């Protein structure tokens, strides 16, 4: 295998890990309560701005920014759940779509109003520069995001499969009335799910901000990939989103390099549709 090709694949894996990290919150919210959160990308955007503010005001890197973004976004998630989601969940699907889409615009243009439309950027060497392993270059900031993506996926998976809290959350997802009869409060569980999902987006945002530009519309740029990742992985499956993210990252990189960047989306979406044809529930979704 040629040398460049290895670099292309490594780059694709790192990109894919970011897609996975970006998507975990979206798939969790879907899995827990069948809500497609169109504001997802904009939650990540808010996380990126938190990281930016932490850097400019406190001079702190992702070690400060990431936990703070996670906390703030988790809080925002709870507020959004009680202020909006709880009510629109009772309505038709269209209400969810428009409700979360409205929230997306509210977040986007609040940030726009506050920070302006300018593109912002964190310093390139905020996370230890770039490793050069035998000529293969790995950016520390992307590697960090990749490692965190793995940890978040593992953590969420363990939470859902190995803990009482996870079982309760799944019980509410399965049948909220029955869960209520067993003494589980659906509201609390779903609020926790939103807090975790939104916290994960904050974390993702703070890490992505270390190597991507920050702008109010960035959620839109990255958001579409998140939806593809989640549907390919299987709606609601956290490990599925990881595998799907990595897959999309590598396919994008390879097709971009071998065929041309203009065609990479075409390749990804053609494969994606072809795959759904055979397996509509996605890689790891329940049929």
């Amino acid at each position, binding site marked *: 295998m040629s040398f460049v090709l290895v670099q292309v694949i490594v780059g694709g894996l790192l990109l894919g890990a970011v897609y996975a990290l970006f998507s975990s919150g979206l798939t969790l919210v879907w899995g827990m309560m069948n809500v497609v959160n169109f504001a997802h990308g904009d939650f990540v955007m808010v996380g990126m701005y938190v990281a930016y503010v932490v850097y400019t005001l406190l001079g702190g890197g992702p070690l400060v920014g990431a936990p703070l973004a996670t906390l703030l976004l988790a809080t925002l998630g709870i507020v959004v759940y009680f202020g909006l989601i709880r009510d629109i969940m009772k309505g038709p699907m269209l209400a969810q779509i428009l409700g979360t889409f409205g929230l997306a615009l509210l977040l986007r243009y609040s940030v726009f109003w506050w920070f302006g439309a300018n593109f912002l950027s964190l310093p390139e060497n905020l996370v230890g520069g770039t490793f050069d392993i035998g000529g293969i270059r790995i950016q520390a900031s*992307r590697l960090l995001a990749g490692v965190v993506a793995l940890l978040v996926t593992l953590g969420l998976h363990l939470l859902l499969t190995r803990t009482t809290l996870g079982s309760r959350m799944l019980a509410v997802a399965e049948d909220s009335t029955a869960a209520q009869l067993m003494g589980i409060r659906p509201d609390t569980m779903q609020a926790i799910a939103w807090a975790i999902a939104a916290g994960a987006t904050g974390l993702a945002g703070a890490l992505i901000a270390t190597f*991507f530009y920050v702008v*109010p519309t960035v959620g839109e740029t990255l958001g579409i990939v998140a939806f593809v990742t989640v549907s390919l992985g299987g709606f609601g499956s956290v490990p599925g989103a990881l595998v799907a993210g990595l897959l999309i990252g590598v396919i994008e990189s*390879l097709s971009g390099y071998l065929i041309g960047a203009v065609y990479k989306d075409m390749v990804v979406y053609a494969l994606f549709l072809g795959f759904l044809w055979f397996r509509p529930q996605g890689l790891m979704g329940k049929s």
Partner: protein
Amino acid sequence: MSMSKLVGLLSAAAIMMALGTSAFAQQKTVKIGAVFPLTGQAASAGVHAKAAIEVALDIINNAHPELGNFPLAKNAGLAGLGGAKLEVVFADNQGSPATGQNQALRLITEEKVVALTGAYQSGITLTTSAISEKYGIPFVNGESVAANLTERGFKWFFRTTPIATDFAKVYYDFLTEMKASGAKTDHIALVHDTTEYGASVAATITSAFKEKGIAIAQDVAYTTNATDVQSQVLQLKEKKPDVVIMISYTSDAILFAKTMQSLDYKPPMLLADDAGYSDPSFLKAVGKISIGAFNRSSWSVGAPGSATAIIAKLYKDKSGDEMDDTAAREMQGFFVLADAIDRAGSTESAKIQAALKATDMKPEQLMMGYKGIKFDDKGQNILASGLIIQLQDGENYVAVFPKANAEKAPVMPYKGW
């Protein structure tokens, strides 16, 4: 007097006042529509465009004797219309050609604007100006460079900016001179998005160079607002072109700069085609890792106390950012439109159109470094020109070519970070 009577009287008074002011307004203000990407992916450019137009409005509507003989500055309002003030109605194209078109329609039919300007992205100027053409409303564009905009046989479209064909020539001359001074310029790569702007500028450069017997060795096209450009940078890194010409909007330009650094790729020469590379937020975000980048521009801030320096100061006070080439070209376009309305002495479309056709502005009447403004039958300014600038310190561009306008000598090779 009972309460209801009082309310009635008051509202009658209010209505009369409203009617009175609107009648007054009709007499004393001239409405111009401006379509820009005020939200969406290109909002950064749109917001700067709006600030530029607002500064121009200030200069036109208020007395600015400090600007000397700069057209429309000395007295308040348009002298040709008895001191009438200009009013600009801004509309947001949201980065979408269809929205731009709808906004143009609204500005013309609802707001009754007498002329239009905008719309930043060539692809949106294309659709927006089609509406003004249909309604017979003059459209003056100061910044969109896709060559085909003035190749449509339009009667109401006028463009002041130099366009892709002009720049292709400047690039060729520049590269020829750099080659004479020892730089390698044989292997040229074009990196561009697939928007109207990116695709058409790339095509124009390719054919212009071909006429001179130079084949573009590598063409790297990508979809705008990319989430990742590693594979494109690796393609360049593998082919090792001598010159990389970047034709990119801001978001992609920033991502390219970051990715080139992380993959440790520096072309010997990086020549950018304005757009993203002129955006002040590009310089703030990644200027420090793009040191040595060449770019094109027609704007130069000039000596302290000069009209251009004063305008630059007004702009910085308004927007918080340094004046860049794109904002300046937009402002120049707007001044030309205002000047035509002033000379027309009327808000009638046909008279403004006639005045635009008769435009003959000299370099000293301009804020841009054009050789003048004079439109051909297609509506293109035949005296538009540009120069090459270089980001030598990672913060501000300096003019490096042609020699007559150069502030500093070009520095090779591209340094990056």
